[in-house]
């Protein structure tokens, strides 16, 4: 297939396109699917190998945990939640940007969604997988995890439905299921595209063909498919708001100073989308450079991500401000004491890093030049990822370590196994992400073809060229 056949006429070009207008259906399909054809590159093997090592570290840490129990972690009274819940909240927050992009932006008919929704949804799915393991590992007796579910049993034991922790079970499992279903439905036409790729081996085409359920692009199917996709978007959109709200209520429902506040649900949702977009940028910038997808994931996409980070970052900062103000305004010595400890206590480096990463760094996004320079954005997004993790750490651990009774105040020291489990999930995440990049199209192919139809001026010209035997 040919690329760049049709050159744009001067003066009529969209200066800031969401898709290079020179793409045709064929070249767009080819451009996305060529990366998943054999052979496997050495750099992929290196990246995957490194991630897989991290995944092995995770398995090791979890095995150790199962042998010895949660005592191998640094958790104890008063800081009982430690790294496990910090990581849970951080990971599940990251997932939210994927759902935001795939559901909200679809409903709002934002065209720039098309090139980034597929890998953002994959990110969501893998982040939820990483998040989901932490509450289970943290149970102490994880083999009894099914006690969380309402099922008739001989012990006559049922969950307590007024507890946010039980809501969480429902919220996270629904979120994971809906994300998976949404992602898979979106993938079906693209799996069929790979099935029909004549360069692929028979085995590959059988596997992709099986996964594509025999999709043949019939108009009567598309009609129902589009309706189903829209319905799933409509169902996933409120999940963006609800899941992290419920996670926020896990905290707000407790009486610990620094937790017992109604600001938590909205503040957590903003933080979730903030950190999620940071992760989208962290993944998108290297991916578009490595796979040469700059003409599909354009500067406009990165700029929009940066704008959303700026907005949600400002909301998060407002959250910090309100927390601090309410601490003072409550007049409660415990709240004031906790807030004083947060600013000037032993965890001050973590807190001020949070302020720097989440409040100061996004301010650079006011500049258009920063928003449109990928690697600057990449560095900023890494800082925001760090900042958001530390924010979760501060909320979980610092609040717990300084509650009502001075005799109960105790430091939290994470152990090697805490770090190993956390780094291990990062390995797990990237293992899945590398597999995704290798075996599935990172951009929604059918949707991109639709964009070509809408945006490309080349359709008629390219068809004429094909007819004249140019191809």
């Amino acid at each position, binding site marked *: 297939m040919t690329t760049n056949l049709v050159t744009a006429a001067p003066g009529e070009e969209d200066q800031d396109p969401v898709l290079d207008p020179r793409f045709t259906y064929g070249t767009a399909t080819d451009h996305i699917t060529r990366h998943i054809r054999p052979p496997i590159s050495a750099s992929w093997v290196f990246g995957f190998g490194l991630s897989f090592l991290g995944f092995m570290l995770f398995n090791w840490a979890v095995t150790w945990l199962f042998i010895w129990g949660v005592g191998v972690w640094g958790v104890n009274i008063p800081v009982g939640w430690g790294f496990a819940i910090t990581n849970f909240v951080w990971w599940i927050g990251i997932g939210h940007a994927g759902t935001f992009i795939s559901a909200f932006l679809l409903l709002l008919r934002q065209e720039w969604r098309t090139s980034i929704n597929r890998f953002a949804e994959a990110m969501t799915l893998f982040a939820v997988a990483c998040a989901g393991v932490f509450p289970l590992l943290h149970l102490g007796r994880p083999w009894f995890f099914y006690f969380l579910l309402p099922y008739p049993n001989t012990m*006559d034991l049922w969950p307590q439905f007024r507890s946010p922790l039980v809501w969480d079970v429902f919220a996270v499992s629904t979120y994971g299921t809906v994300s998976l*279903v949404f992602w898979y439905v979106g993938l079906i036409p693209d799996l069929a595209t790979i099935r029909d790729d004549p360069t692929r081996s028979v085995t590959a085409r059988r596997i992709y063909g099986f996964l594509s359920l025999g999709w043949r692009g019939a108009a009567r199917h598309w009609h129902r498919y589009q309706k189903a996709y829209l319905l799933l978007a409509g169902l996933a959109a409120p999940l963006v708001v609800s899941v992290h709200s419920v996670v926020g209520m896990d905290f707000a429902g407790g009486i610990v100073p620094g937790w017992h506040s109604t600001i938590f649900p909205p503040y957590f949702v903003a933080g979730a989308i903030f950190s999620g977009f940071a992760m989208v940028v962290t993944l998108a910038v290297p991916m578009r450079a490595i796979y040469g997808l700059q003409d599909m994931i354009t500067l406009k996409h990165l700029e929009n991500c940066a704008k959303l980070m700026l907005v949600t970052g400002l909301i998060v900062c407002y959250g910090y401000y309100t927390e601090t103000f309410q601490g003072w305004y409550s007049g409660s010595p415990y709240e004031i004491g906790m807030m004083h400890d947060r600013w000037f206590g032993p965890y001050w480096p973590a807190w001020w890093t949070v302020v720097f990463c989440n409040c100061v760094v996004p301010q650079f996004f006011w500049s258009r030049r920063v928003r449109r320079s990928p690697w600057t954005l990449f560095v900023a997004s890494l800082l925001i990822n760090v900042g958001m993790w530390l924010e979760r750490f501060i909320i979980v651990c610092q609040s717990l370590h300084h509650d009502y009774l001075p005799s109960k105040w105790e430091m939290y020291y994470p152990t090697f196994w805490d770090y190993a489990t956390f780094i291990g999930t990062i390995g797990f995440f990237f293992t899945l992400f590398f597999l995704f990049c290798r075996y599935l199209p990172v951009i929604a192919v059918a949707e991109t073809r639709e964009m070509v139809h809408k945006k490309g001026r080349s359709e008629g010209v390219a*068809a004429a060229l094909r*007819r004249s035997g140019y191809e």
Partner: protein
Amino acid sequence: MWGYLAEYETPGEILHAAEQVRDAGFTKWDCFTPFPVHGLDNAMGIRKTILPWIVLCMGLTGLTIAITLQWYVNSPYTQSASLYVLSGYPLTISGKPYWSLPANVPVMFELTVLFSALTTFYGLWTLIRLPRFHHPVFSVARFRRVTDDRFFLLVEAADEKFEAGVSRTLLERTHPSAIDEVKD
């Protein structure tokens, strides 16, 4: 023979062809496109899907299950002998009421969404009869490009209006780039 498969290169061409085949009164025919072509539903006269209504019903079912479940489980009013099969477990927590709706809203919401999403998923495949791994159109070699850059229109031989020569002429008049016979 199973039918005729005409190939087109642009969405505009297939839209035009679909209108003609529809107006000729065919019922057993379909278009195949690499992406959903806007306006093709109308050009083909496809009736609106009932999927949203199925989803609504199942969503409400999920909501009902969530309310009943929570009421059974944590409310002491279910301790009567007749309902003992699924006897609940009312817990006294901070003197809060056993049954207060606001506390039950999150689970109600989540189960509604879960039931709706799974119904959308399985309902879609049921309505469009997939998975179906074999279909006669796959026997045409060029049909492979339907997931890339070509648009196809199939007229089935099983259609009442179908007459081999006449139908082929009808398709030829729509200026396809190729016409294939689909074998059984």
